[in-house]
């Protein structure tokens, strides 16, 4: 075991982690621990763009953007945070440009902008061009640009270090962060990082679904680490299903394809979104479009022999436009489906995409231990966190924005804190939980296999808590997950070695997915209403009287060691917008 001491430790080197690192490295001695090489992070997969009311191509302002974000989130958004997001969007795009990001340009040489779902002029009048982009590889450019600037600022990375535990210590009755425990992939060694401030920026948790746009490595490690230490997770029932994943594979085809004029069609060639969202049509918010697609499929208007998908039609767009604006996704269609998008429509289905919920924070990125109290020294930003700027449904292009705005804020806040705070003394045997977990898995002889349990988990999640949910389907998922958690105790692995033991880490990751799946399902069961990404067929309406509130899920351990989940609720911050019926 090795012990390291840094002022600030950042967990994750995606967009949020690196944006934080650029700030924090200039102010405090910082280490970034990341299970992937920074440029492998899933921010690089983002395609469509980053929202900011630059008004470079048409009239726009941050207040319209705030409104769209609040409405898009079905009013579960904390409006003070949404206002910060929309206001600081402008500088955060300009910051990236100054760091070197090669945005697409307008004929006058300014940053070009395009349409995206749910973004409108003047509170819903018509779609607005708000998304700043670099072809359909905006996330790639953001990730590269941030990494380049980390190189420039000499950010210290610990690559292929997996953070598996969060150290919390009570000092004078106050729970504080003392550091983290990490596992080094190359050697199997355990490292304790003592730090005055820790920032989680470890990304999402989409891998508990089968059809998903998320990377294999998005297993919610950060959420699980703090949850297991008794901190709450907020709004975990809200998961976004993106309308256009490649049929069966889930690989994303950006909403930018519809922003550029792409149209969804059913087996009769009908542009069905006209029925469901007369104004915004194909550019209605994602939850609305995903439900519309499944409604078409259920009512027998799906495509293909099994009627299990619909088409994304780009054939009416000029090939030059596809080449210039959507080169990557058209290539995905060619590579993975053998389809030529110039001439043929692309089979798509909704794909599990984005976790709206996560580790609750305030607008400075400070992590909450209940509805109001912060944990000194603990921060979170990006998809792992819940500020909450996305509420019940995130708008497209608002996450690349979120990671930049709140990554920067968390980086500054954490570094300022570590400049004045003292180190918290490490607990006795700080590594013990991780050592025990690793040794148990390495020496286990049970007959359950990681891959099989993961497959069953993903299947039950897809079948029961995806776009449509009912009491009965959610209960089925809760029971299945409980069963899988039991069976997980008998899991064994084949690789017993210390060197690059990815077999072991997949087992650890599965444990995290199971914990988080349970939180999601239990939170979903209790929310007896439909809002944004959480749609209950047995409660099809939004219920502002009983459910205009955030879910806070806590892990409880009884005297007998039995684990359970306690749900509590937190009020939504409302400033200027009263909840209205959501129509597109």
């Amino acid at each position: 075991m090795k012990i390291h001491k840094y002022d600030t430790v950042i967990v994750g080197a995606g967009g949020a982690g690196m944006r934080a690192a650029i700030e924090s490295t200039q102010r405090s001695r910082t280490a970034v621990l990341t299970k992937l090489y920074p440029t492998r992070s899933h921010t690089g997969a983002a395609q469509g763009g980053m929202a900011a009311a630059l008004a470079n191509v048409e009239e726009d302002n941050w207040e319209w953007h705030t409104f769209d974000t609040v409405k898009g989130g079905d009013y579960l958004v904390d409006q003070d945070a949404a206002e910060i997001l929309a206001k600081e969007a402008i500088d955060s795009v300009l910051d990236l440009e100054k760091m070197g990001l090669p945005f697409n340009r307008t004929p006058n040489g300014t940053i070009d902008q395009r349409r995206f779902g749910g973004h409108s002029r003047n509170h819903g009048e018509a779609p607005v061009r708000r998304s700043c982009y670099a072809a359909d590889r905006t996330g790639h450019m953001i990730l590269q640009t941030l990494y380049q600037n980390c190189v420039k600022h000499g950010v210290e990375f610990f690559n292929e270090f997996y953070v598996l535990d969060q150290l919390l210590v009570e000092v004078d009755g106050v729970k504080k962060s003392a550091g983290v425990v990490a596992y080094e992939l190359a050697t199997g060694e355990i490292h304790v990082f003592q730090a005055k401030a820790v920032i989680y920026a470890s990304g999402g948790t989409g891998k508990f679904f089968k059809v998903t746009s998320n990377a294999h490595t998005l297993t919610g490690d950060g959420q699980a680490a703090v949850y297991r230490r008794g901190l709450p997770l907020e709004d975990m029932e809200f998961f976004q299903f993106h309308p256009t994943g490649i049929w069966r594979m889930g690989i994303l085809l950006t909403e930018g394809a519809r922003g550029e004029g792409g149209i969804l069609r059913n087996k009769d060639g009908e542009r069905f979104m006209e029925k469901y969202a007369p104004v915004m049509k194909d550019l209605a918010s994602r939850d609305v479009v995903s439900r519309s697609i499944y409604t078409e499929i259920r009512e027998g208007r799906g495509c293909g022999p099994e009627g299990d998908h619909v088409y994304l039609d780009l054939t009416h767009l000029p090939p030059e436009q596809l080449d210039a604006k959507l080169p990557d996704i058209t290539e995905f269609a060619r590579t993975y489906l053998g389809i030529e998008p110039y001439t043929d429509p692309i089979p798509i289905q909704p794909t599990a995409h984005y976790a709206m919920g996560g580790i609750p924070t305030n607008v400075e990125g400070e992590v909450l231990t209940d509805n109001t109290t912060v944990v000194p020294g603990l921060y979170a930003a990006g998809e792992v966190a819940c500020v909450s700027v996305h509420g019940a449904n995130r708008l497209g292009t608002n996450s690349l924005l979120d990671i930049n705005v709140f990554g920067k804020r968390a980086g500054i806040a954490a570094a300022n804190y570590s400049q004045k705070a003292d180190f918290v003394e490490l607990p006795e045997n700080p590594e013990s939980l991780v050592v025990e977990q690793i040794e148990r898995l390495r020496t286990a002889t049970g007959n359950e296999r990681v891959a099989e349990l993961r497959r069953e988990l993903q299947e039950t999640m897809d079948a029961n808590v995806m776009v449509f949910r009912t009491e009965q389907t959610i209960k089925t998922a809760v029971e299945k997950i409980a069963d899988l958690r039991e069976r997980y105790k008998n899991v064994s692995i084949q690789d017993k070695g210390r060197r690059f033991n990815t077999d072991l880490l997949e087992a650890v990751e599965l444990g995290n997915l199971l914990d988080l799946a349970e939180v999601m399902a239990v939170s979903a069961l209790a929310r007896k209403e439909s809002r944004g990404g959480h749609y209950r067929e047995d409660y099809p309406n939004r219920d502002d009287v009983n459910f205009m509130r955030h879910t806070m899920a806590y892990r409880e351990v009884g005297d007998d060691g039995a684990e359970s989940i306690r749900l509590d609720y937190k009020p939504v911050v409302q400033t200027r917008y009263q909840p209205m019926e959501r129509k597109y």
Partner: protein
Amino acid sequence: MATPVLDKVEADSAASPYITVTFRVRRFNPEVAAEASWQDFVLEIDPKERVLDGLHKIKWDEDGTLTFRRSCAHGICGSDAMRINGKNRLACKTLIKDINPEKPITVEPIKGLTVLKDLVVDMEPFFQAYRDVMPFLITKDTNEPTRERFQSAEDRERFDDTTKCILCAACTSSCPVFWNDGQYFGPAAIVNAHRFIFDSRDEAGEQRLEILNDKDGVWRCRTTFNCTDACPRGIEVTKAIQEVKRALITRRF
């Protein structure tokens, strides 16, 4: 009713899409044996699946010790560059049907970097070469503009190709010069220097050119085009290197 679930591929049709293929994988684990060796795995697989799917089938259902890097699984993160049938490819972008499944499919680690375990190599020297070309925008403005810097669409287009690089190392590890001498910067580092040299906003082109003028710099390139063939992003790597060479001669970029 629950969300409709797609039927499993197996249930698809009477004619099973599955074929039998052999994966011949280069194994190495110094914890077990000092030497590398080949191991064959026979799999049932849909030819429309990826080589990565095959590797996962092996790891998940047969042999959990098989070790490789992967993340996004659709050609964006750059984790899974490997030598597939003797050519550098991303395992997640190579479909079985496109590589003649009749014969065993060989899968080896990329060359020129130290193998650590199975298909995992030490990427540090690769990233070091990248860092050495100062891969970040350098400007001399003393007062930064309040808004964005202007750049015409044509100026932006000038370096578009080299912005696509995902640092997977497929190009560098396909280069015979790099195999023989790991000191050579390698194509990926030059591509990333190109991305800034030809960016109208950047003002450190001269400095970068000097770095590449080094004895281990661009002049080592023998124009074998392996790198261009290997690039999973379709970057015209050799052309980019040629442009850097030309800029060194003319000092115009």
